């Protein structure tokens, strides 16, 4: 399958290193993609996978490292878009298609942008060219239909075919005989039956001498389609292996890494506590009729792979997302989730800390005090005026309780560091003593010290009687913080981990769909 002596590797990266502030994202990673092969790239979130891709896209400048394309040394960093000149094309998860334009127009976007040489655009000619293109890749897509009307799999095929065509027309590829197509999780939202069509397309592309780098979370896909696979963990290269020589379980072990676990302290005996919140038949865009409960004072983790739907849980329970049905019962009050609005959720004792702090969690251009005081403004309105001095004083106290630095209520919120911003958001909601606290990636972009403080604040709230649901792909965080973890796949809850079983590796294994027990 792999062409022997097929000339130099399509791409070789050596000792690539990239740090963000103090965090090492890539600690000297090697990657070699042979000519004509499909190469898988695997790793958890935070393994350095996406940083590596972004270096190749010219988005990140690496600290050090070398890059060879088809045996030719290329100086780093790459300029954004320079990959095109090197005979490399990308298809990202979002596919980069314009839904309102037709298939043909989407195919032609690149050439419109590059400055069309012809003055007169002939529609029939463009359609004919599109049909010829699809014929080359054995695709049947109607060139005149709007992309938004295509089924998801055809959209993915279109995006990939467009990129492949970009390679075919690239001077660099024509010169060297083959390019590199990087597919960055293009299958996440596809039903598994449809993925087969994608594999065929990928094989058609490699048969022309080009290589494909296939980035995915899904082990089954990687096992089926790739010739070799490279696994990254914590910014390090774990290894590159022939796919035929590995099993799903051995890949999981490479991804997770087997370390001896020191038995952690026994978790809170949540089973003996009363059930505080019950969620019945929650359905949303991806999740389908999921039911579970949270004990009073329990920290419940929900997780899964991208596209499994776990991240719809906090928004669905808050009326902020697309919950189509379901009931949330807190104590003896039942809330219809399909009709829930955030206003009512807040009134009902819920609080949501969304993942996107900048867009959904806080207003960066306002002061810290304005952000924190938002849910309790009414309590400072007394005698016809907002008691700004009292507000400032009490918020300053609150800020020192949560160690928000600098302790200056009138500082602009966006001037705080990520960790302090998140502490402020937590303070904003915990001062309302919510019944149920919903968290989504609560420590994203937060340094280690602040992370521990955030955990401390969440635990303190739980000990105070607040029930917590934490949705996250940070398995280490879940293992450290949660009393119980639910694992989602394809819109359903497939595992529940309690007590000693809550370990990072175990969570990761189950998320990746490993079946073996221990």
């Amino acid at each position: 399958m792999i062409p022997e002596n097929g000339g130099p590797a399509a791409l070789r990266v050596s000792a690539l290193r990239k740090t963000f502030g103090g965090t090492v994202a890539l600690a000297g990673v090697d990657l070699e993609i042979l000519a004509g092969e499909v190469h898988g790239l695997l790793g958890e979130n935070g393994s350095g996978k996406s940083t590596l891709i972004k270096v190749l896209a010219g988005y990140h400048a690496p600290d050090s490292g070398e890059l060879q394309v088809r045996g030719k040394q290329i100086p780093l960093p790459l300029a954004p878009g320079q990959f095109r000149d090197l005979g490399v094309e990308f298809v990202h998860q979002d596919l980069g298609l314009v839904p309102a334009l037709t298939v043909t127009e989407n195919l032609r976007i690149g050439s419109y942008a590059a400055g069309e040489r012809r003055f007169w655009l002939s529609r029939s000619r463009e359609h004919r060219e599109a049909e010829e293109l699809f014929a080359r890749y054995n695709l049947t897509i109607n060139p005149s239909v709007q992309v938004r009307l295509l089924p998801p799999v055809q959209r993915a095929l279109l995006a990939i075919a467009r990129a492949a065509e970009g390679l075919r027309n690239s001077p660099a590829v024509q010169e060297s005989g083959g390019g590199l197509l990087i597919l960055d999780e293009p299958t996440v939202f596809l039903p598994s039956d449809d993925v087969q069509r994608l594999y065929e397309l990928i094989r058609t592309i490699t048969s022309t001498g080009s290589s494909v780098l296939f980035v995915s979370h899904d082990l089954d896909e990687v096992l089926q389609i790739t010739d070799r696979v490279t696994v990254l963990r914590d910014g390090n290269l774990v290894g590159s292996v022939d796919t035929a020589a590995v099993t799903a379980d051995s890949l999981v072990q490479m991804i997770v890494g087997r370390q001896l676990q020191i038995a952690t302290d026994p978790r809170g005996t949540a089973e003996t506590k009363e059930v505080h919140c019950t969620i019945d038949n929650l359905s949303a865009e991806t999740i389908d009729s999921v039911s579970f409960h949270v004990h009073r004072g329990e920290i419940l983790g929900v997780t899964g792979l991208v596209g499994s739907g776990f991240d719809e849980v906090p928004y669905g329970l808050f009326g902020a997302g697309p919950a189509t049905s379901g009931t949330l019962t807190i104590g003896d009050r039942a809330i219809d989730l399909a009709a829930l609005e955030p206003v009512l959720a807040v009134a009902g004792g819920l609080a949501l800390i969304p993942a996107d702090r900048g867009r959904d969690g806080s207003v960066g251009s306002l002061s810290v005090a304005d952000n924190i005081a938002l849910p309790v403004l009414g309590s400072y309105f007394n005698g016809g005026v907002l008691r700004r001095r009292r507000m400032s004083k009490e918020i300053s106290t609150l800020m020192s309780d949560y160690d928000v630095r600098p302790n200056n209520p009138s500082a602009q919120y966006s001037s705080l560091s990520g960790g302090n911003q998140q502490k402020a958001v937590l303070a904003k909601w915990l001062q309302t003593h919510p019944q149920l606290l919903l968290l989504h990636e609560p420590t994203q972009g937060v340094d280690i010290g602040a992370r521990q403080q955030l955990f401390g604040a969440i635990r303190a709230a739980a000990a105070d009687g607040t029930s917590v649901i934490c949705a996250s792909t940070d398995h280490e965080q879940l293992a450290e913080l949660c009393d119980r973890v639910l694992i989602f796949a394809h819109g359903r809850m497939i595992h529940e981990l309690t007590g000693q079983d809550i370990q990072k590796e175990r969570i990761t294994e189950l998320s990746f769909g490993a079946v073996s027990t221990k």
Partner: protein
Amino acid sequence: MATGNSTLPSQPKVETSRSGLSRGQDRKPITVFAERYALVGAWIVLAIFFSFLRPDTFPTIGNLSAILGSQASIAVLTLGLIIPLTTGDMDASVAFVSNLSAMMVAVLNVNLGVPIGWAILAALASGALVGGINGAFVTIFGIDSFIVTLGMGTFVGGVILLISQSNTISGVSDVLTQAVVITQFLGIPLEFYYAIAVGLFLWYVLEWTPLGRRLIVVGRGRNVARLSGLRVQRIRWGALIASGTISALAGVLYVGTSGAADPTSGSQLLLPAFAAAYLGATCIKPGRFNPIGSLIAVYFLVTGISGLQLLGAQGYVQNLFYGGALVIAVTLSQLTRKREEISPGNSQ
């Protein structure tokens, strides 16, 4: 993330500066002061400049009284406008609403003999109604507020021509003109004080009530407001009703100043109101639409115009001044905004 270790408060900010930290905080107090009061300074310079050039006509009580009194209507209109601007919506109908209100007072009072008090109430109600319709389209159907209010403004312009049969209607009860322009306090017509009162009231609401804070949050971060449990749509709707009502009040002052309503004056007020609102957002509280800044901007603009007219400039100077001021003010406030809204990139 580049963040200082939170347990060491005195960490050097070398690392954090790349995430945009502390910009806007580290600026010197003098810079902040200069920015806040630059417009006030420019206004004073302008006044001194014209006083030197026209010492006999410009620095007189009569001219001062004229400058302060004549602008009450535009001032109130601007104050109404900054409410939806604060919540992040446009209201391009304010000038027409104020014209409609003026015309309603005239038609009801002069043509139909309705007592002036009731005519005023009806005019204010019409403003609230137009604002309510604007708000309904914007919040229920989610239509862009600029398009809705532009269309409504033109529609209202048609209603004005209809009810007035395209005539200027004069002879409004002098109870109104007495209360608005004839009676003076400290040599300045009462309408000036009405405008100041509206400005102070708005300042109170924006600065000293929870509602004011909520208006700003809705304008700055609609999602944040929604997820914090604010009734975002209701607040936006309310803001448009408020701007309609206050615009109608501006119309009452207009008809009270001249004793007459003409059917086409509305469009001429639109640009000055927008220019003053955006120019006002560059001072006192730079980056925010604020009532005090708006009032200063209104009087800055009229000082420039009346000074140039005293120097012999023609009517066109008004267009040059308001149009130019709008573009420059929007540019300035955009720059202030950008600096205010720099947020740390959580890049990875």
